[in-house]
Structures are given as structure tokens and as C-alpha cells.
């Protein structure tokens, strides 16, 4: 953990408690500053990403050879369960709405902090505790949970998954779920009530819009998951029969409850990263976003549709209304397509700077379009009957999720790192980081589509040499090692920037939004003064008055923040 120096506050009127603010470890555990908590979230989430990534490499190593014996069947099942759970619950979500949103949102909307700073602190500690609880499963006698990140009942019930490992998993997800709910309350309240004067809803940066919608989705989805976990726990320990046929329960109800959370969750993970891309591409193209309101409504449409598509994960159960759920699932392609075309149209006619951040952003679009297209295929029930629970699906969601959380996420890291720390990450190493990860990504996941079509089910620990899966699996494993090296290069880059800081200045990218109008890193209360907010790009307007979006009001301006 690095402790970064607070900048010298140069104004005369230093607030009393700023001077008394503690430093070091004590600051780290007690701070209610959104910037400190945001960084804590990022470091923690990235740590979980590296742990879960190492598990993925073990999984791929097991599958390198047919009849692989690198790990036992039980260990393999634990590995993919915790890999998925950790990536989804502990990395992707908290990285976005705990890390990026926490740090960036108050700065983007011109607020001094989140609406509920202490609740924010509680969220982080619940999250960390939840994460550690999940890892503890490995140290129990019967091992960690081994029923997949979806924990389908009745496999997840006591008779089929005895022991404390599954209990720790349930408690862990519940803790992280509460953390997410609190963060969402905080985010939504902050965005609704703490916007700076002049920052109307339709002047809000698209990242803030994405986070607002994400927050609302969390409030819709997470309580359902938490409730389902309570029911599952009651089944396991208090003799309830919510999900067991023997007691008159309905096992498939778990799938309905889980996916009612699970599908909005996919967009909870994706929307923040769409938001990041919608910030980056205009800045690095030196053009405003093409069709701002279209993007806002596309985001809202995705959120609305995402609450009505959960049963597309259940097409093969034979218990859901296929035409309804396939229609809504296919329709999601429309607002998502709008976003992709908007990004391309924003780049069109621009002056694109291809630094590491922009490389990751463009890499994201390529990966996401590929994952999106196969998603449209899976939205068609007959094709889903064929490919459901095969490596085709594995390839699809890894392309979508790595596209968003890794490529768009790292685009965001390289973009906002100067704001977070006042330093640059190394550009040359950053480009290696991108290319190695990006090429590895395609080598890993393209063969998996074919494996799925050739009949390889997901979550199998061994396959036979006569299945014809060997070559494609080996290719995929080699690709995954490349991605591992790519991620290691990021770690190296981080360490280099820590050891040999290269100062970045306050606004190195010629940014558009308010966070670039303050110092890097920002002072304890974020702003000493705010520029006038008369458009969605206040910092650009201030720095480029001749190309400003809004003509400064001469007299009688009612929206000036000055």
C-alpha cells in the first residue's frame, strides 16, 4: 500500500480538520474521504483480480492436456467457483462502483465528498470482510464452495454441498451485497443532491450518468440476491424447504431469483465501463460525444430492458416463456449498438491520440462488439439450446466481461491515474501491457467458441483425447498465459510509477469534465474553486473559450457557480 502525499493546500483559509487529518495506516483504515476509500477499493479489487486470474491460469493449465491431473476434481470445482465469484462479486463490481465511481463521481459533479461518507467507509469494510470470508473457504477441511458462481439449488443445498465452505461463500456474497447496496444508496443520493450549481442532469458527464443508472440497478437487483441467499442459508441450516422438492419447494425458483439479480448484474458490471469509454473517446478524439442525449437514453434503455431478460439464462429449463424473453434479449442489442455507433461517430472526424488509454478503449470496442454479436446469437432460444452451458457461452461472456472490466477498466486506469496520483504510468510499458493482453485475449477465447460448437460443456475438469478438444484447449491455454504476462506488465508499470514518479500535472489529457479542473491529486475537499458550468464540458469551455460549447453569459446568468 502506497501512501501518497496530500498536496500542499495553498489557499489561506485552511479548514481546521484538514490540518489534523491523520496519515499512514491510521488514515487508511479510518478515512471517510471518498478519494481514499475509492483508492482502497481499487487496490483491493485489483488484488482480488490477480488472485482470481491466477486461479484462471490453474484452470487453463489443467485443461492443457486431456485427462489433466494438475489439480483434483474437487479442487478444480472449487477453483472455477471462486474464480467466477471473485471476478464478478469482488473485482468487477466493486472496482467500478466502489473504485472508479467513488473517486470520480464527486469530482465530476463538483461535490466535496459523497453524501454519506461514513456509510461509504462501512461499505468498504463490509466488502473487504466479504472478500476475505470467501477466501477462507479454502482453509476449511472440506474446501471452498464448489457449485459454480451461480450456486444452483439443489446442488448448493446441504445434502449435496455439506460443510462450512459453501456457508462462507453465502455469507461472503451477502456481505458484499450489502456493501454494494450501501454504495448504491450513496451514489444515487450524491448524484441527485450534491451536484454543483449549474450542473443540471443533462450537463452531467456520461460516466456520472452511467453510475447513476448503475446505482439504481443495484438497488433493484442486489436485495433480491441477498434475500435469495438468506433463503438458501435457511434451507441449509434451519430445515427450510424453499428449494428442495422433498419439502414441497421449487428448485427452479433459485434460478429465477438468482438471474433476476444476475442479469441486471451483468449491466451493473458493464454500464460503468461504458461510461468510462464515453468519457475517454471524446477527450482523446478532441470532440464532444456524438449524440449526448442518445447515449443517456440508451443507458436508461439498457437498464430498463436488463430487468426483463433474466430468463434467457433459463431457456433450456423448459419453464420460461421463450418468445417474451428472447424478444427483450434481442432488443438489448439496439441501445448497445447505439453506444458502439456513437463511439465510432465520436472518433469520426476527430484528432485521435493513440496513447495507452485510448488503445485500451478501442480494444474494448473490438472485444465488446464480438461478445455482443455472440450474445445476440445466444438470445435466440434454439441456438441457445445448442450452445447453452458449453464453451461457446464461456467465450461469449468472457469476451464481454474482459472487454468491459479489463480493457475499458484499464483504459480508465491509464486515463485517471494522473488524477488519482499526480503521476503518469509509463506509456511504452503501457502499450506492451495492452498488446500482450489484447492478443492473448483473442487467442484464449476464439478457440473456445469452436470448442463449444464441437460439444465441450463448461465446467468439466477432464476431457478425453478422443474428443478432439485437445488442440483448441492448448491454444486457449497459451493465450491465457499471454494475458497473464500482460497483467504482470501492468503490475510492473504500477511499481515503476511508484518508485520513479513522473509528475503529470493537473490536466494532462486536455480533459473535458470537472475533475480536470482541480489539482492532481485533488485537495481534501476537492475544489478550491469551480469553473462556470454552462455545458457538459465545463473544463473544456474554460480552456478553449473559442471552441466552447456554451457562450459565457454576460449578465443575469443564473447558473454561474462563481
Amino acid at each position: 500500500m502506497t501512501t501518497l502525499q496530500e498536496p500542499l493546500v495553498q489557499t489561506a483559509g485552511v479548514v481546521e480538520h484538514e490540518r489534523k487529518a491523520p496519515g499512514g495506516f491510521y488514515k487508511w483504515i479510518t478515512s471517510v474521504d471518498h478519494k481514499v476509500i475509492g483508492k482502497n477499493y481499487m487496490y483491493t479489487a485489483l488484488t482480488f483480480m490477480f488472485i482470481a486470474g491466477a486461479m484462471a491460469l490453474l484452470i487453463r493449465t489443467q485443461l492443457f492436456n486431456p485427462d489433466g491431473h494438475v489439480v483434483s476434481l474437487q479442487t478444480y470445482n472449487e477453483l472455477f467457483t471462486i474464480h467466477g465469484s471473485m471476478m464478478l462479486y469482488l473485482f468487477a463490481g466493486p472496482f467500478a462502483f466502489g473504485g472508479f465511481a467513488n473517486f470520480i463521481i464527486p469530482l465530476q459533479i463538483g461535490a466535496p465528498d459523497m453524501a454519506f461518507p461514513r456509510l461509504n467507509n462501512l461499505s468498504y469494510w463490509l466488502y473487504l470482510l466479504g472478500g476475505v470470508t470467501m477466501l477462507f473457504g479454502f482453509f476449511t477441511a472440506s474446501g471452498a464452495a464448489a457449485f459454480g458462481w451461480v450456486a444452483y439449488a439443489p446442488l448448493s443445498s446441504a445434502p449435496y454441498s455439506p460443510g462450512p465452505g459453501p456457508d462462507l461463500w453465502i455469507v461472503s456474497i451477502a456481505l458484499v451485497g450489502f456493501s454494494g447496496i450501501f454504495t448504491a444508496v450513496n451514489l444515487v443520493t450524491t448524484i441527485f443532491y450534491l451536484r454543483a450549481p449549474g450542473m443540471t442532469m443533462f450537463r452531467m458527464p456520461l460516466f456520472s450518468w452511467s453510475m447513476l443508472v448503475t446505482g439504481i440497478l443495484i438497488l433493484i437487483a442486489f436485495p433480491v440476491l441477498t434475500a435469495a441467499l438468506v433463503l438458501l442459508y435457511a434451507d441449509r441450516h434451519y430445515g427450510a424447504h424453499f428449494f428442495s422438492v422433498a419439502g414441497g419447494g421449487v428448485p427452479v425458483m433459485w434460478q429465477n431469483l438468482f438471474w433476476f439479480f444476475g442479469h441486471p448484474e451483468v449491466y451493473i458490471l458493464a454500464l460503468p465501463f461504458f461510461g468510462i469509454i464515453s468519457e475517454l473517446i471524446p477527450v482523446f478524439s478532441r470532440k464532444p460525444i456524438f449524440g449526448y442525449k442518445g447515449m443517456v437514453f440508451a443507458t436508461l434503455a439498457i437498464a430498463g430492458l436488463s430487468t426483463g431478460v433474466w430468463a434467457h439464462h433459463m431457456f433450456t429449463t423448459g419453464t420460461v416463456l421463450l418468445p417474451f424473453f428472447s424478444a427483450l434479449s434481442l432488443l438489448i442489442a439496439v441501445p448497445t449498438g447505439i453506444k458502439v455507433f456513437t463511439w465510432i461517430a465520436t472518433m469520426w472526424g476527430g484528432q485521435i491520440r493513440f496513447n495507452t488509454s485510448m488503445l485500451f478503449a478501442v480494444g474494448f470496442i473490438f472485444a465488446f462488439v464480438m461478445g455482443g454479436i455472440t450474445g445476440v446469437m445466444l438470445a435466440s432460444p434454439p441456438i441457445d439450446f445448442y450452445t447453452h452451458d458449453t464453451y461457446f457461452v464461456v467465450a461469449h461472456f468472457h469476451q464481454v466481461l474482459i472487454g468491459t472490466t479489463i480493457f475499458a477498466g484499464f483504459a480508465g486506469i491509464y486515463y485517471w491515474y494522473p488524477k488519482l496520483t499526480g503521476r503518469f504510468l509509463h506509456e511504452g510499458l503501457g502499450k506492451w501491457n495492452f498488446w500482450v493482453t489484447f492478443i492473448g485475449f483473442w487467442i484464449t477465447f476464439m478457440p473456445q467458441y469452436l470448442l463449444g460448437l464441437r460439444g465441450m460443456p463448461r465446467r468439466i475438469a477432464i476431457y478425453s483425447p478422443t474428443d478432439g478438444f485437445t488442440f483448441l484447449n492448448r491454444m486457449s491455454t497459451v493465450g491465457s498465459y499471454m494475458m497473464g504476462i500482460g497483467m504482470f506488465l501492468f503490475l510492473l508499470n504500477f511499481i515503476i510509477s511508484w518508485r520513479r514518479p513522473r509528475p503529470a500535472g493537473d490536466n494532462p489529457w486536455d480533459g473535458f469534465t470537472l475533475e480536470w479542473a482541480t489539482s492532481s491529486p485533488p485537495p481534501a475537499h476537492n475544489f478550491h474553486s469551480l469553473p462556470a458550468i454552462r455545458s457538459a464540458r465545463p473544463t473544456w469551455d474554460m480552456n478553449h473559450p473559442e471552441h466552447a460549447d456554451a457562450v459565457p453569459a454576460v449578465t443575469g446568468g443564473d447558473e454561474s457557480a462563481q
Partner: protein
Amino acid sequence: MGRFVGTGFEQSRGVRRVARVLGPIGGIGVAGVVLSACNIPTFGAFKGNTVQGNSTFHLWQGFFVASIFVGGITFALLALAIIRFRRKGESIIPKQIHGNTKLEVFYTVVPVLIVAVLYFFTVRVENKVDTVARNPNLRVDVTGFQWGWKFYYPKYGVTTITKGVDLYPTLELPVGETATFRLVSNDVVHGFYMPEFDFSRYALPGVTNYFDFTPQHTANFLGRCSQFCGLYHADMLFYVHVVSPSQFQSWIHAHQGS
């Protein structure tokens, strides 16, 4: 460069021109796929080998061709934007275009139309795949359990069942005859997965699923469990033999004795 940094209006006219050309081509493409599906590649998929699975296969081909069109156009536009508008030398501030309503409506409406076409064919195929015959030639009761399968032919009183590791049961089917399957699970959720029939269905505790297969060609392949069901999930295999009706009858007679 200047040619491409035109006003939004010019761009949208350009896009409309492209659309006028691509629209009919796309329509013909989709229609062509549906009409002459046999002449285009499999794109990695199995051909189905049942009346039901084969229609899924043709749908897959249609979706794949549509994807090549849509994905190809998107990737091409993206690549073009990257190549044409990369900053070269001195930085200038480009024209600050905030959007173009006509173009935005265009790239909203076109995906809606594409999706509507895909949905139309989806519903047609899914109704075909999900139809259960009123008077099937054959009934097979399938039970999934940890970790194996039981196939019961009620008309003949024949049962095959997993008897241990590597002792997989056989699902014998006569070619050309419609068989109705009744699928249940004794314990946890399993996935009854027939890769070469382009089909899978959950075996769910508390739910009974029915579906039909009408095999078209003789074949031998492995069926699997697709839904993770515990420790030996990977080992829940079964042999599928699609044989001639006479071979099927002799197989039945051979197993009725045992």
C-alpha cells in the same frame, strides 16, 4: 482529411447512401441464407442430424451470416475511423460536432429492423424445435442423477443405465422415426446435452420436460451433461447410436432378455 471532416449533414447523406446499397443486399443475404442454407458453410456447428436440430442449424447459419454483415460493417467503420482520424503531427482542434439527429435515428432504427428479422426466424424455429408429437413412434424416459443417466423405453420395458465410472449407458434411436423424450432428474440439475443434435435441455428436479427428436441419418456420438452437477460432472457421458429401424428392433430384443 477535409473530405471526411465534413458537416454532419454530409455524413448522414453518406450513411444513407451506404444504407441504400447495403439494405437490399442484407435483405437478399438473409433471404438467401434461409432458402439455400445447405450451400453455405457450417461455421463450426454440427448440422443437427434431426429434423428439429437441423432447423436450429439453419437458424445458426442465418444468424452467423447476419453477424458477418453487421460485425463486418461495424469493424470496418471502426478501423476506418482509427486509420483516417489518427492525429498526425501538429494537433488542431477538429470541428466540434455534437450529433446529428437523422444519423442517430438511422442507427437506432436499422438495428431494430435487423433484430425484428432475427426474431421472426427465431420464433419460427423455436416453435418447430419445441413441438411434441401427439402420437410418437417411440417414447424414451430419461432420468439424470449424480452421476449418470437412465434411459427407459416404456413400450419395450428396456432400460440402460450408467453402471459406474467409464460404464456409460447407450441411447439407441431408430433413424427417421420421431421419438418423444420425457426428462426428469432425481437429485440436482443436470443438462441433457446431445451435441450432434444441436440440442440440450435441463433435467430439473420437480419439473418434467418433453421434447422430440426425429433423427435423419445414422450416427454414433457421445451425449453429455452440460449443467454442472458436482464432482463427476465431466464423467456423465452416454453413447448415442442412431441406427436403422431393423437394427433398433434387434437391439431392443437383445436387451429385453437381460
